[in-house]
């Protein structure tokens, strides 16, 4: 069964005289119980999409439905069955942790006790601070409270808009573990992120840039679609090495990736020898070169340039 159906959604904003196309005919579907990632940088249109699907914003054209309910006609039913965690912290700063959670439970005609099972894992981590005002929590704790508040009415679909932005690597990992436990309860999760490495934690992803979907697939499917062989190189002086590689007219792209540079050539004959030649001419030492499998970020950058 399909939880989310999006068909040709268009959204434009008028900023003074210029028209900004936030979403250009976006279409995709999300199956029930799936973790679906919307991966893209700021300004890609992620938040507009989330606001349209949670019935907070009207699209210019196109259709969308959640659990079979239309986002315009049936907005009341949708609001009852989705949980939404906006990118910007939107709980009541001057209410305590417990008061915020009670407030959201009450709005949905339920109680913390009734759905405690669902939030227990997460709520227990912030329970020691339940009398503290939400505004005085640290970033990681705010994020956990916001997730509890989005879950307390047992939604069938959860919308998480950049839940891990600005969060450190350890907390990010923990957050994704929480999402996988929620998936086991049958909740459909639409989650957006600017961190490309988080794509591999989703069942399927849509790569999005400037209002357009570049590709929709499983994380493996996306990396399999990378068209040309990808080489990884390393030497003693990495910045100089990058400039030397970029000077070669046969090179299509060269991007730094941590300790390595990832290089793609336009044509594929004797690429290894050509790279070794660049290293020899530039008097680089400790030169290493190998053929590697691309990751999501390699694919995203290649698609951006198409």
């Amino acid at each position, binding site marked *: 069964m399909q939880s989310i159906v999006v068909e040709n959604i268009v959204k434009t904003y008028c900023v003074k005289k210029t028209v900004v196309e936030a979403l250009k005919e976006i279409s995709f579907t999300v199956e029930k119980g799936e973790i679906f990632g919307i991966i893209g*940088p700021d300004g890609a249109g992620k938040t507009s999409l989330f606001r349209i699907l949670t019935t907070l914003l009207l699209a210019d054209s196109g259709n969308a439905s959640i659990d079979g309910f239309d986002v315009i006609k049936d907005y009341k039913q949708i609001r009852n069955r989705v949980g939404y965690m906006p990118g910007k912290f939107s709980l009541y700063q001057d209410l305590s942790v417990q008061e915020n959670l009670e407030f959201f439970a009450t709005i949905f005609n339920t109680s913390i006790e009734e759905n405690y099972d669902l939030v227990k894992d997460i709520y227990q981590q912030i329970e020691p601070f339940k009398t503290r005002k939400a505004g005085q929590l640290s970033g990681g704790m705010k994020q956990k409270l916001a997730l509890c508040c989005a879950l307390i009415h047992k939604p069938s679909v959860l919308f998480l808009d950049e839940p891990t932005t600005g969060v450190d690597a350890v*907390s990010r990992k923990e957050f994704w573990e929480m999402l996988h436990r929620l998936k086991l309860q049958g909740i459909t999760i639409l989650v957006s992120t600017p961190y490309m490495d988080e794509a591999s934690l989703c069942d399927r992803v849509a790569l999005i840039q400037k209002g357009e979907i570049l590709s929709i697939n499983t994380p493996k499917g996306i990396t399999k679609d990378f068209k040309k062989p990808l080489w990884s190189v390393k030497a003693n002086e990495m910045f100089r090495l990058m400039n030397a590689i970029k000077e070669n007219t046969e090179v299509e792209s060269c*991007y730094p990736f941590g300790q390595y540079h990832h290089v793609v050539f336009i044509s594929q004959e004797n690429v290894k020898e050509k790279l070794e030649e660049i290293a020899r001419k530039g008097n680089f030492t400790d030169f290493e070169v190998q053929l590697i499998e691309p990751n999501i970020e390699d694919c995203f950058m290649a698609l951006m340039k198409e």
Partner: protein
Amino acid sequence: MQNEKVITAKELTKRFGSFTAVDKISFDVKKGEIFGFLGANGAGKTTAMRMLCGLSLPTSGAATVAGFDVYEQNELIKKNIGYMSQKFSLYEDLTIRENIKLYAGIYGLTDERIKEKTTMLLKDLHMEGEEKTLVRALPLGWKQKLAFSIAIVHDPAIVFLDEPTGGVDPITRREFWTLIYEASAKGITVFVTTHYMDEAEYCNRVSIMVDGRIDALDSPANLMKNHSAKSMDDVFLQLARKAVRKE
């Protein structure tokens, strides 16, 4: 790289009541070095950085930044450093030219020098002809590159970058790092925090804070070797998981 030290910190400590946010950290940063300052949320990075920028007085310990003492000469520190963060960088309702003029003016550059700098900066960023564009209208990546160039408009000894690339697309993120390399090659020391672990690997040296202390400080290659890790992500997870204190 010269061996001149641009930052020295010795047992630098900051307490808020009974809570020790920064606990006796000691380290040096050399001229022109790209120094990565990592740590989990709540490890004490922001507090440490505020002390080094002359914005917060330490409780104990000693530190100098650009040759000035953090207790006695914090106003001189502010004049000799650059600062940029993801959260606040430029004024959205001013044009590119106005932003440059404002910051350069605050740092005391002469009108003539401001003019020169404006031309140079726009040329380097390939933004000629855009000087009258409002900053609000720029894509995030452009904004961040412009903010960085403005942060070093007064040729400071050191620039502090607090998560400068959050949310930026992967190509622009790499272009931003090219600007960092160029600044470093000109002798400007770069002190940078980031949540992207691949960026940690671009630094000359990296320190990792856990519970207010610096638990590791070395080149990325040595850190990976000493922790038998394949990437900085592994090193970071190993160390940050040892944290006892809650955020």
